[in-house]
C-alpha cells in the first residue's frame, strides 16, 4: 500500500499499457477523445467558416452527397388575405459547406467544431466542480462519521430525490438572478494573438474567426452542483474503509491534524476511483448539457445541444441540422466512455454505474 503524495505507480502504468494493447476499444476511445480535443483547442485554425456568420440566402443546404429536391410553399399577402404558392426547389450541396448549413445559413461543420469547445468546457469544468464539492463532502462525511455523516448524506438523499434535470433547470433560474448573463466571454488566445489569422491566411482560409469564446458559467455551476452526489458517495466509501487502516490510525496516534491525514493519506488512496468516475461523469455531463439546451434552458447559442434544439424544428425538411451535432455528441461521448472503460478495467477501482444523465 502506498502512502504519501499522489503518484502513479509503475504497476498502474503497466496495467494501463497492457489493457490498452489488448483492447481495440480503448484505442478507438483514445483516438476519438484526441480528435475532439484537437477540434476544440484548434477550432479557430481548422473551422472552414466563422460559426456565427449568417448567409441567409445559403440556408438549409444539405451535406455533400445529398441533393434536396422539395416542394416549398411560400405565401403572399393579397389585399389582406394570404395566398400560398407551392413550387419545386432543388437545393444542391456545395463543397463550401461540406456538412450543410442550418436555417440561418451557418456552416454546420464549423459549428460542430466550435461546439466541441462548449461541450468539453462544460464537461471538464463541470466535472471538476462536482468532484471538488463531492469529494470534500464525501471525505468529511466518511472520515468523521456520526452526525456529520448523517447530515451530509441525508442532504445527498434530498439531492438524489430531485430529478437531476429538474434540479438543473431550477438552479439555472437561480443563477440567472445573480448573474444577468448566463455565459461569460473570454478572449480566444489563438485569435487575439493573430496566430489564427496568420495561419488561416497561410492555408487559404482568410475568414476572420470569433474573437471570444463563450464560457457557459451558469451551466457549469449547475451541472457541478447537480452531479456532486456521485463523487460524495464514492469518496465517503473510500474514507470509511481507509480510516480503519493501520497507517491512518498510526498517523492519528502521532497527532497529525485531520486535514493533513485526509489530504496526505485518505485522498491519495481514493484518487483512482475518483478519476475513473470523473471520466464517466464528463460523458454524463455532456449529455446533461445537451438535454438542458434541448429544453431551452442553456443560454448558449454555440453548442451541440443548442443546434439540436434548433434542428429539431427542421427534422422533416432538413434532417442534417439536428443530425450533425447529434452524431458529434454520440461520437465524443462514446470516446469518453471507452476511455473510462479502459481506465476502469486497468485500474479496477471497484465502482460501477455511478453517475448518470
Amino acid at each position: 500500500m502506498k502512502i504519501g503524495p499522489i503518484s502513479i505507480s509503475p504497476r498502474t502504468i503497466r496495467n494501463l499499457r497492457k489493457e490498452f494493447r489488448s483492447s481495440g476499444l480503448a484505442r478507438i476511445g483514445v483516438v476519438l477523445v484526441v480528435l475532439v480535443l484537437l477540434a476544440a483547442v484548434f477550432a479557430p485554425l481548422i473551422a472552414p467558416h466563422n460559426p456565427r456568420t449568417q448567409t441567409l440566402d445559403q440556408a438549409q443546404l444539405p451535406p455533400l452527397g445529398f441533393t434536396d429536391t422539395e416542394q416549398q410553399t411560400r405565401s403572399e399577402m393579397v389585399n389582406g388575405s394570404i395566398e400560398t404558392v407551392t413550387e419545386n426547389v432543388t437545393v444542391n450541396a456545395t463543397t463550401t459547406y461540406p456538412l450543410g448549413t442550418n436555417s440561418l445559413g451557418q456552416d454546420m461543420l464549423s459549428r460542430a467544431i466550435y461546439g466541441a469547445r462548449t461541450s468539453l468546457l462544460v464537461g471538464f469544468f463541470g466535472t471538476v466542480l462536482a468532484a471538488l464539492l463531492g469529494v470534500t463532502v464525501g471525505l468529511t462525511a466518511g472520515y468523521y462519521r456520526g452526525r456529520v455523516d448523517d447530515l451530509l448524506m441525508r442532504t445527498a438523499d434530498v439531492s438524489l430525490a430531485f430529478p437531476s434535470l429538474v434540479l438543473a433547470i431550477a438552479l439555472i433560474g437561480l443563477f440567472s438572478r445573480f448573474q444577468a448573463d448566463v455565459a461569460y466571454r473570454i478572449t480566444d488566445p489563438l485569435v487575439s494573438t493573430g496566430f489564427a489569422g496568420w495561419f488561416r491566411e497561410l492555408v487559404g482560409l482568410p475568414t476572420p474567426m470569433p474573437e471570444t469564446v463563450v464560457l457557459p458559467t451558469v451551466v457549469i455551476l449547475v451541472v457541478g452542483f447537480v452531479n456532486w452526489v456521485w463523487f460524495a458517495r464514492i469518496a465517503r466509501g473510500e474514507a470509511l474503509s481507509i480510516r480503519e487502516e493501520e497507517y491512518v490510525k498510526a498517523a492519528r496516534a502521532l497527532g497529525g491534524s485531520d486535514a493533513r491525514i485526509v489530504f496526505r493519506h485518505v485522498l491519495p488512496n481514493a484518487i483512482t476511483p475518483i478519476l475513473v468516475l470523473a471520466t464517466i461523469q464528463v460523458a454524463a455531463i455532456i449529455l446533461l448539457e445537451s438535454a438542458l439546451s434541448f429544453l431551452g434552458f442553456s443560454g448558449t447559442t454555440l453548442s451541440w445541444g443548442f443546434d439540436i434544439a434548433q434542428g429539431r424544428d427542421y427534422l422533416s425538411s432538413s434532417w442534417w441540422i439536428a443530425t450533425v451535432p447529434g452524431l458529434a455528441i454520440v461520437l465524443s461521448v462514446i470516446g469518453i466512455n471507452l476511455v473510462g472503460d479502459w481506465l476502469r478495467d486497468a485500474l479496477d477501482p471497484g465502482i460501477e454505474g455511478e453517475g448518470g444523465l
Partner: protein
Amino acid sequence: MGYGRFLLKRGVQGVGVVWGVVTVVFVLRFITPGSPIDTVAPLDASQETRQRIAEELGLDQPLYVQYLDYLAELLQGNMGYSYISSIPASVQVFQKLPATLELAVAASLVAVALSIPLGVISATRRHEPADYAATSFSLLGISTPNFWLGIMLVLVFAVELNVFPTSGRAYGFGQTLAAITGPEPFFTVATAWLASLFLPAITLGTYFTALITRLVRSGMLDELSQGYVRATRAKGLPETLVRYKHVLRNTLVPVVTVLGLQLGTLIGGAVITEAVFAWPGLGTEIIRAINARDWPILQGSLIVIGCGFVLLNIAVDALYAYLDPRVVAE
C-alpha cells in the same frame, strides 16, 4: 435491527427527505426570477391588477409565512392549489402520475427484459461476436442523448413507416383494463394502448437497458473469477446452476442498488421523453410548472417523486437482503 425499527427509521428518513424537498423548493422560489403573477396576469396588466392577483394567490404574504402555511396545510394532506388553473395540486398531480408511472414501468420492463440476458450472454461468451454486439449496443445506448433517439424513432417508425402513433397517449392502463368488461372492444383498446406506449418506452428504456447490460456484464465477469465459483464448480454443480443461481444472483445486488439511486435519472429521462412524445405525464407537468412558476404544482410533483424515491429505496433494501444474504450477516 428489528423489522419494525428498520421501517420506522426509514419512515422518519422519508419524512425528512420530503421536508427537504419542500424546503428546497421554497428556497428556489425565493431566489428564482419571475413570479407566477407574470404568467397569470397578461403582459399589460396594471400594477393594481397584479396586486389583486397576488392577494388572491396569497403571494403578498412574507415568504416564511407562506412556507409555514404550506407545511401546515401539507400536514393535513393539502398540497395547495395551482396558481394557473385553481385546481387542487393533489388532483392535478395524481391525474398525471399514472401516465408517467406507466411509462417508467414499461421502460424498466423493457430494460430488465433485454439487459439481463444481454449482459449474461456478453459475460459468458466473452470475446465472441455476441459479446461484441452486446457491448457495442450498450456503449451506443449510454452515449446517445435520449431526446435525439426519440426524435429519430418518431421519424422512422411513425412518420415514414407509419406503424406507431407519433405522439400522445391513446388510452391509459386503467382504461384498457376497463375495456375488458366495458363497451369498447378490448383488443382495439389494448392495441392502441400498447402502440402509443411503445416508442416512448423504448426511448426512455434504452439508456437503462444499456446501463444495466454493462453492470450485469462486468459484475458477472467479476463474480465468475471469484473463489466460490471455482469451489462450487469443483463440487460438481452443473454450470448453468452455478451461473444463474449463484453468480447472477450476486451480480444483481449492485445492479439493484444502482437502479434504486437512478430513479432521479429515470424521472429526468421521463421529462425529456414526455416532451418529445407529448406524453401527458408528470414530466410535462413539471416543465410546464417551472415555465409558469406554478410552484404548488412543482412542489406537489416533487413531493410525489420524493416519496417514490424513499419507497423505492426501502424496496431496494428489502430486495438487497433477499438477493444477498451476506448483507444481513454484516
